[in-house]
């Protein structure tokens, strides 16, 4: 679905070098790396915001030069910076940008807003705006929309996100009529996430969205991602520092370091290729140099990151385990 072939890009004082990967549909791809490793720049290349100096990037088998409109119509994006306009309300923003998307639906957007606790599930028609008829009682034949509605009801009934009364209070607008700039950072991200889902994209690109989510909503967010790829035709790219989530969720991993691709492939291959070896430092130093990537020597127990070979026999007195992404990042930085 997304293919990068030897992509390089020089930025101001930084260079992305020779990035290659092929991400199929139905995968959640974790994009990880330290600060300044090039994650956001790579996402900008995938989104067509930057143009590669060399190599090529294709999305859905198409390139941006000829098919920018078609590609963007199928990509949902949540970036670190806010994309909505702060002086417009949630609904005004959604309608303003939504008109560009062929599959945008305010009904769907609103259901996600309700699900995320940004709008009230039940409200008088004048508070829902002109599209009130589209929200309640509509015989929606779209399976996806039915699922979203069901989830919205479930969550409201379970009071996970109890339907806060967003009716107009003290003369201030409420629900989807609230001014976007007056929402908290977390609410703004949720709002943009709802918008990204509202036009049924085939690819969801998320650049560190979870930092401002509360723990409850983070779980909810991960569930939504699982739902999103459930049919096997869609893809998620999630750039995040919260690697625990990726360990549970990701099927594909791209790890960048200083603009270079350290690893790009499915998570099984990642876990097969590397091992974390724990034990006494003198034992770890016996590991052949060509296998050893790095070592973190501590007074009581050291750890080493090694290239793994299936038939290699480790010292019985060391513990060998497949690396968690966070361990890998930490140990790789010790080179």
């Amino acid at each position, binding site marked *: 679905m997304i293919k990068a072939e030897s992509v390089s890009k020089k*930025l*101001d004082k930084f260079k992305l070098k020779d990035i290659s990967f092929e991400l199929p549909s139905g995968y959640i791809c974790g994009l990880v790396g330290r600060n300044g490793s090039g994650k956001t720049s790579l996402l*900008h290349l995938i*989104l067509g*915001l*930057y*143009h590669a100096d060399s190599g090529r990037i294709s999305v859905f088998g198409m390139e941006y030069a000829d098919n*920018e*409109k*078609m590609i*963007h*119509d199928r*990509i949902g*994006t949540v*970036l670190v*910076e*806010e*994309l*909505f*306009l*702060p*002086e*417009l309300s949630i609904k005004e923003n959604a309608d*303003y*940008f939504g008109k*560009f*998307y*062929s599959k945008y639906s305010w009904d769907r957007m609103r259901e996600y807003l309700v699900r995320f606790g940004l709008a009230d599930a039940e409200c008088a028609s004048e508070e829902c705006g002109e599209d009130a008829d589209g929200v309640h009682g509509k015989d929606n034949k779209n399976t996806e929309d039915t699922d979203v509605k069901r989830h919205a009801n479930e969550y409201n009934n379970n009071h996970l996100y109890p339907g806060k009364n967003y009716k107009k209070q003290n003369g201030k607008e409420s629900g989807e009529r609230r001014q976007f700039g007056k929402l908290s950072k977390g609410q703004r991200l949720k709002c943009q996430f709802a918008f990204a889902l509202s036009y049924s994209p085939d690819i969801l690109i998320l650049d560190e969205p979870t930092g401002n989510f509360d723990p409850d909503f983070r779980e909810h967010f991960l569930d939504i991602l699982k739902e999103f790829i459930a049919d096997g035709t869609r893809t998620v790219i999630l750039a995040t520092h919260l690697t625990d989530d990726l360990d549970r969720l990701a099927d594909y991993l791209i790890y960048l370091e200083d603009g270079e691709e350290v690893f790009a492939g499915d998570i099984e291959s990642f876990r097969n290729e590397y091992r974390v070896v724990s034990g006494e430092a003198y034992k770890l130093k016996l590991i052949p140099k060509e296998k050893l990537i790095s070592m973190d020597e501590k007074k009581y127990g050291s750890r080493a990151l090694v290239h793994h070979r299936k038939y290699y026999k480790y010292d019985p007195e060391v513990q060998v385990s497949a690396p968690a992404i966070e361990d890998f990042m930490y140990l790789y930085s010790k080179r």
Partner: protein
Amino acid sequence: MWQYVIRDYFRAYRWNNVKHAWKTTSRTSASILVVLMFILVDFFWEEVNVVSRIIIYGAYGLPLVFSWYATVIHPMALPKMLYLCPMDKNERRQYVVNSYIFKIAVSMIVSMSGLAVVIFNYGFDILVFITIIINNLIINLLIPTEIFMKENAGDYTGDLWYFSNFDAYKEWNKESAIKVALVFVITMFTNLIFIDITDADIADRGSATFVRVILFLIMLSIEIPLVISYRYFIKLHIREAEEYEAVDINK
């Protein structure tokens, strides 16, 4: 598309934007105001009709300040989300061009309002009228935001879509800035002198006519060629605004 262009235009008039515009173009804005102040010094030497003169210079100067800020808070670049929305280059270019045209149109309407005050006070003179209209149009055409941004502004906000660190601009920024500043000063002074001599109690009307002709020739021989040579930069601005990479100051 026009409804969104118009809404975008008026949406930018927020206090935060005006404050930020002042902060990031403070030296140039202050310079313009200082020049206007020197003009106003003239008032102290006039014993009659000071209030009227203040009104006239205000009618001329305030639209100028409006044009200035309208340009600063309406850069060519689009909001980032519009570079992610499904639009092809032609549609984006049209959006940029329409926004630019609308900005000029509104600024011209404001300028003409000020000119109406001048005409009301001093009567109608066809040469003055045509010259001031052309001069105001030149001013409104020529001032893209980027010329007057500090080179390493670094005070980008999510609200304002400035681009000031793009390498290409640094090279030709000074050249175009000099042209714009030159044209701006010439147009401003010729306008003011036109107003001044229109009001002046000059016994020899022939001298007044001579001065007007000279100013008109300055416009034809200096201003208009500068504008023609500047069109390349306007086209470049529009072309760059089609691509996010060209306007990304965080790159």
